[in-house]
């Protein structure tokens, strides 16, 4: 049970990173990114491709970050002439195209079989020290990401993001370059998502296209909305809450004597039902955004 809890905590941290990344985009920049999972995928495939080419983890994270920044730049370029909602649909389409590419370009990605055997980051340590060290790394990453996001959004840069989110015309009339702001925000968010993907790949030891289905994006959206869009702590709490709820679904299934196939359905119901409930009755989420909070710059 202890190792199971460590596993859930590691996954909660990795989703926390993804949730922070999406929150920076949508919660602060108003960037409705429905292709978030592919930024995570850049990190997983960066690690996997580096491994398959006998390169070390440093090359893996570098590759993942490069992939993610390139995709983020493509997303930003794509959005230049599109409204927020149409841009969201376009990001979903690009993410799907890239997933299908990963599924088919076997020479690079291993195709549908993916790439397995990626080494654990702390594989030479005995259990449970290895997973505990991974959890420690995840916590450090999550804290660093939280500090980065907090620093960004409590500065004047954060004010610019908020103005872009709500009144883009006013922001442009004051001299803010919205295209540059979008590109920068997407790139920072992409690096966070890629870091999550890199650690995930070295933790699960397998990378495949099935990890990049769009339902993963909507799970991250649910975490942000339920936790509190525009609040970093909210995004982390949303991720932890959803992960622990997911983890305990099989126990609920056993307690109620339900068949195994109900587990996936119950998890989907949790995501959909949770999203719907919060959108209808508590749009600000569990920990709402602070209006007029302390500024650093």
């Amino acid at each position, binding site marked *: 049970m202890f190792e199971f809890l460590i596993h859930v905590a590691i996954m909660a941290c990795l989703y926390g990173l993804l949730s922070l990344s999406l929150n920076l985009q949508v919660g602060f920049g108003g960037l409705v990114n429905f292709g978030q999972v592919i930024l995570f995928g850049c990190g997983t495939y960066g690690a996997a491709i580096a491994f398959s080419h006998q390169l070390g983890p440093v090359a893996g994270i570098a590759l993942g970050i490069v992939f993610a920044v390139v995709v983020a730049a493509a997303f930003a370029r794509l959005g230049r002439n599109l409204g927020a909602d149409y841009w969201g649909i376009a990001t979903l389409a690009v993410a799907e195209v890239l997933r299908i590419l990963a599924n088919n370009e076997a020479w690079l990605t291993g195709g549908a079989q993916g790439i397995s055997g990626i080494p654990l980051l702390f594989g030479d340590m005995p259990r449970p020290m290895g997973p505990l060290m991974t959890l420690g790394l995840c916590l450090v990453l999550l804290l660093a990401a939280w500090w980065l996001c907090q*620093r960004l959004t409590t500065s004047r840069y954060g004010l610019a993001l908020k103005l872009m989110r709500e009144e883009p015309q006013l922001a442009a009339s*004051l001299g803010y370059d919205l295209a540059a702001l979008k590109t920068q925000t997407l790139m*920072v968010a992409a690096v966070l998502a890629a870091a999550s993907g890199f650690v995930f790949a070295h933790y699960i030891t397998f990378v495949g296209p099935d990890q990049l289905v769009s339902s993963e994006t909507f799970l991250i959206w649910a975490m942000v909305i339920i936790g509190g869009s525009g609040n970093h702590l909210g995004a982390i709490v949303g991720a932890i809450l959803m992960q622990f709820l997911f983890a305990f679904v099989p126990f609920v299934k056993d307690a109620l004597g339900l068949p195994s196939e109900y587990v996936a359905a119950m998890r989907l119901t949790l995501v959909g039902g949770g999203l719907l409930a919060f959108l209808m009755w508590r749009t600000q989420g569990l920990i709402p955004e602070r*209006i007029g909070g302390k500024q650093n710059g």
Partner: protein
Amino acid sequence: MAEAVLTAERVAKAFGAHKVLSDVRFRIGADEIVGLLGPNGSGKSTLLNIVSGFSRPDAGEILFLGKSVAGMPSHKIARQGLVRTFQLPSMPHRMSVREVLRAGSRDGAGLLQAFTGKGSDDAEAEELIEQFALAPLAHQPASSLSGGQKKLLSIAVALRSRPKLLCLDEPTAGVHPQLRGRMVELLKAFNKRGVAMLVVEHDMHFIRELCGRCIVLDRGEIIADCAPRELTENERVVEAYLGKSVAKQKVSA
């Protein structure tokens, strides 16, 4: 007149077959407050949109501080010091009045500056909050302000960006009459500190108090460029607002 801050030459704009502006020429001196008047549909807002980069002219030239800005993106024009407000100012739901005012200045708003900047108060923003009587509302969400208060906030935000030319689109619409007098005083004070202004407005009393010169548009053409007190004597202006028969009666009287 001081050196021109804005010069428009032969500006033209059409939406399909409908000509909105044709051969519009004017200049604004660096020390001036100029009113831009005209009946509804005369092309005032289109001209303001073109000058501020929110619309591209079909023809003509616009020089701001001697540099061509015709067709330039709005944010680039704003960075040079030409800042505008909007007829119906919309304000953020999830930003306080103080935050919006602070966002008026781009100083220190770069990505890397988020990590190098130190915590500091924005004295200019605080001064504007006091001057525009927004202090009791400073912590409130900006969207919760009344229409008139939003107008005041939008002017204050534009001034926070330290413009050289401020274009105001109907600044008094929805503003309490008592506040209009205060607005005139404030705008005049900023004008003395070097901010030229182009003011689209329907309130003639406000225009007479604030502006030294008026440009009148009718059906996309400039029909008058004179002092506000001369407007009622100008037959073309009276005709544009009240019709031909009234203009004739007025002139014959």
